[in-house]
């Protein structure tokens, strides 16, 4: 499979009053064509910073590494080249569709703007395209919706419009940053279904950023688990959900309340996520880890491949191998 996106040794640091915040610290991953990859982790683990870095939407103090979109390095592109790429080859949908649509303009106007930016068409043709796009994302009464302002629509419909705008140019990579977190359960099911249809129809690769492990299991082919700016484990959905290797992944999965059985007590992870300006030495998870060894507090473990496609960053897994 050819890779749509390759991220190599990406580092995004911010200088703050408390010190250097290593929001994303030396991560590498790739996304194949038509593949859906889930990026999971708790708040503050750097998953949103990763997505914004890939889109080059951040003003970070340090941004190193390569972001290769079909071989072209986004990190070296000029602003002009970038604005041609964004929206065409790579687009993004955000958590809160209300704040990512402009409240002063109708949905139709905003969609037309995106289309005119990337297609060589006139306004009438652009409007026609917008209408088609709205139909494809299942908006009832698309003609009337084009004339409406964002506040007149519900959260689910706004998110549909965001997806329609993102799909304007048959993008190769869609980054979805918590696209269903702000939505109701039944609407979430609708939107996930829509994303599934889009993937099938256009063979779009999706980078799905979420903290909801259920959504990942539902939609993704591969999973990347982040903790405190580092990737701790990656693998196929089955590898991650059925045989998780990293203690953090295991603890996280075990702490979810189950719908199938009535539990007397939930498993918990002790402690809290450390601040990214005051990270522990060695493995960043070791203060909360239940199975740590002596090396864990001393040095950061290397990423090793325990089985094809399944990579883990843990001293204890390393030892099992050798």
């Amino acid at each position: 499979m050819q890779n749509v996106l390759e991220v190599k040794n990406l580092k995004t640091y911010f200088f703050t009053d408390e010190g250097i915040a290593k929001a994303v610290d030396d991560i590498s991953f790739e996304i194949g064509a038509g593949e859906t990859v889930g990026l999971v982790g708790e708040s503050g683990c750097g998953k949103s910073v990763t997505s914004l870095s890939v889109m080059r939407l951040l003003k970070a103090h340090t941004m190193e590494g390569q972001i290769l979109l079909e071989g072209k390095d986004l990190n070296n592109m000029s602003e002009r080249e970038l604005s041609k790429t964004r929206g065409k080859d790579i687009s993004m949908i955000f958590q809160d569709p209300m704040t990512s649509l402009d409240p002063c303009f109708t949905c139709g106007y905003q969609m037309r703007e995106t289309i005119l930016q990337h297609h060589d068409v006139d306004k009438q043709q652009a409007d026609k395209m917008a209408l088609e796009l709205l139909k494809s994302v299942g908006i009832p009464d698309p003609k009337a919706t084009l004339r409406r302002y964002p506040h007149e629509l519900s959260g689910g419909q706004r998110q549909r419009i965001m997806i329609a705008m993102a799909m304007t140019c048959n993008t190769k990579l869609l980054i979805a940053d918590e696209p269903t977190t702000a939505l109701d359960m039944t609407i979430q099911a609708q939107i996930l279904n829509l994303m599934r249809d889009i993937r099938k129809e256009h063979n779009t690769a999706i980078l799905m950023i979420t903290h909801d492990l259920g959504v990942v299991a539902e939609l993704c082919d591969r999973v990347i688990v982040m903790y405190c700016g580092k990737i701790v484990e990656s693998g196929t959905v089955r590898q991650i959900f059925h045989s998780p290797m990293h203690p953090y992944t295991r603890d996280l999965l075990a702490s979810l309340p189950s719908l199938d059985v009535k539990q007397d007590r939930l498993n918990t992870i002790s402690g809290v996520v450390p601040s990214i300006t005051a990270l522990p030495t060695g493995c960043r998870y070791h203060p909360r880890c239940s199975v740590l060894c002596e090396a864990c507090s001393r040095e950061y473990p290397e990423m090793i491949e325990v089985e094809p496609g399944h990579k883990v960053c843990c001293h204890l897994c390393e030892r099992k191998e050798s």
Partner: protein
Amino acid sequence: MTNQSNNTNEKEVVLRVEHLKKYFPIKSGKILDRKVRHLCAVDDVSFTLNAGDTFALVGESGCGKTTVGKTLLRFYEPTAGSAYFEGKDIFAMSKEEFRQYRRNMQMIFQDPMSSLNPRMTIFDSVADVMKLHHMYEGEALSRRVYELLDMVGLPNWLAKRYPHEFSGGQLQRACIARALALNPKFIVCDEPVSALDVSIQSQVLNLLTDIQKDTGVSYLFISHGLPAVKYISNNIGIMYMGKLVETASSEELFCNPIHPYTQALLSAVPKPDPDQRSEKIILQGEVTSPIDPPTGCRFASRCPYATEQCKSASPEMREVVPGHFVACFQR
């Protein structure tokens, strides 16, 4: 299951809510503030809560679940209906009478950051409620505060810090300590874990159940997260647009959901297992406005089984299985 319902029958009823209604008037007109329309946030909701039990209200945003909680503590005055707390009608009390009475009823909010005063230390926030009700003073007060913080798992050395120095999970613990300060018999928990991280949610849920075991407090647990609800609650009420559509014990509801809305809601929960990508019941459309809602069943516009009857008449709650009530004509 019958055993369970027998047990609950023997338990003392802490709270009985009958036909609770809360309509918010919508004013319009330029000169005269005419009340033209009503937003029916809560429409004819009845349930009972037993001592030491948890009743969960589940529903999507805007279904009125928070309004139920807030009306019960009289943050809002109810439009109609009654609520009996240990046999006394709390809606019939005068404001002053109720203020004294409210020490028995507390609330925990969704966002702990905005429900604690940023200018007060955690110690002061917890102590403040007890000072207001003249429960403890001086030495005894500070001993009691430390005891409460201990109970929710906050170390003593954190007591003199300000809210911004805490993480979300720790703040929610402080809010729980504050709610427990007056030894309440009933706590409204309004989405207490929704704003917290996954790994912290289970800590707080465990804490809530531990406290219930120790003190025998009853919870009204308001949430949209079904797995958490299944873990914590004894009985569940599913709400849709201001109305209860189904109530049952927790086990019964998850094993045997009857109302089409409950079925769709349960099937919409993504399961953390890639081999369980089950077929979902995808509801068409979205929640319609609760302003002057239609006369028939409010779910009719999205319901796959709706008939003419559903659109014209509103279904009443019926007992389908002992202890399991459903408001649906088709079931």
